[in-house]
């Protein structure tokens, strides 16, 4: 039984059945035991912490903050580069637009000049044709007038003859011409 073993291992702080008398924490018999093992454990903990764990964690934290700083700097640089690239792109765009406008204006001017030349040429041709046509018309009119005069003279002569008169050609011509003028 436990009771007997405890009795044989009796400490001043244990009762006959192995229970505590008062607070075991205050039992003087056990205090050296507690202090000794505490010091051992504290020394072990301190050794582990100060020699291995803390330097390692400090190194990791320093490395991390260094990495973060570097990455931030790199990001800043890339951002600047991106801004530069954007500016260059905008400038190229503006240039291209200006150039395009210039080309359009040039093309327009060229086309206008060609057009003017063609128009002038066409006008010239039209004028020539018109003159030609006018001449032809004048000729035709002349012919027509002459024919009418001839027909009028002949008709007049025949009329005069039919009415029993005679008339010389000279008089008839003068009369017809006078009439035609009217």
């Amino acid at each position, binding site marked *: *039984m*436990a*009771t007997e*073993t*405890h009795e*044989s*291992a009796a*400490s001043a*702080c*244990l009762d006959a*059945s*192995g*229970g*505590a008398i*008062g*607070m*075991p*924490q*205050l039992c003087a*018999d*056990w*205090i*050296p*035991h*507690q*202090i*000794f*093992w*505490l*010091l*051992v*454990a*504290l020394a*072990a*903990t*301190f050794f*582990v*912490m*100060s020699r*291995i*764990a*803390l330097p*390692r*964690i*400090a*190194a*990791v*934290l320093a*490395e*991390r903050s260094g*990495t973060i700083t570097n990455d931030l700097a790199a990001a800043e640089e890339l951002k600047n580069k991106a801004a530069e690239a954007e500016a260059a792109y905008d400038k190229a765009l503006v240039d291209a637009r200006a150039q395009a406008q210039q080309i359009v204006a040039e093309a327009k001017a060229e086309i206008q000049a060609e057009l003017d030349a063609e128009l002038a040429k066409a006008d010239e041709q039209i004028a020539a044709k018109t003159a030609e046509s006018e001449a032809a018309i004048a000729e035709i009119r002349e012919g027509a007038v002459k024919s009418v005069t001839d027909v009028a003279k002949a008709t007049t002569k025949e009329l005069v003859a039919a009415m029993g008169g005679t008339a010389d050609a000279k008089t008839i011509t003068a009369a017809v011409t006078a009439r035609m003028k009217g």
Partner: protein
Amino acid sequence: MATETHSEGGLVFHPLDQFIPKPLFGNGDVHWYTPSNLTLWLAILVLCVIGVFVLGSRGRGIIPSRIQSVGELMYGFVYKMIEDVTGKDAVKYFPYIMTMFVFVLFANYLALLPMSYSPTSMIAVTAVLGFGVFIAITVLGFVKHGAAFLGLFWMKDAPGFLRPIIAIIEVISYFVRPVSLSIRLAGNITAGHVVIKVFAGFAALTLASPAAILGITAIYGLEILVAGIQAYVFTILTCVYLKDALHPAH
């Protein structure tokens, strides 16, 4: 064990039996060198510290693993506490304070495991920690400032006739520091464990058992808070006392 022989007689509480150190091997007396359950749990504590802080950080990851980030959090927490409370010049005492914080924290939390043994409930243990801090800080103060360290007790802005009285009060409060430091820690942990044990004793009664188990659960939750808070309080008070040693002028 003893409880079984008595338990037929009705309710038996032995809430303090959990604090008895028992030898790991055999049934002899517990001498100062005997490996006991205290030794076992201190060893487990050291292994846990190694597990979290050494094995956890063995990857040295820029992106930390889970356990590594736990270690880093504690590192950052204590480091910042020292910087904020004590000042930047106290950073060289960081390993000592960190060791103490980790020791108390792990001891408190391991003690919450069922069947475990809680080193920080031993007044001898906390007294060694508390007086260790006290002696170290006092020595440090005298080494750094010589007799000027006594200016800590001499209020220069107080009216002349009050100064001796204040000095006496200050001296008393200075010497009470280690006592309050160690009793606060041991008392909190002991009280929590005793209360849980008492509730557990009531659980033997069929009628009371639901309430008792609810009580255990509630107190356990409270104890989880207390375990962390007491480690924090112990550490921050150490930082405050260390500040007095480094900058004794009020």
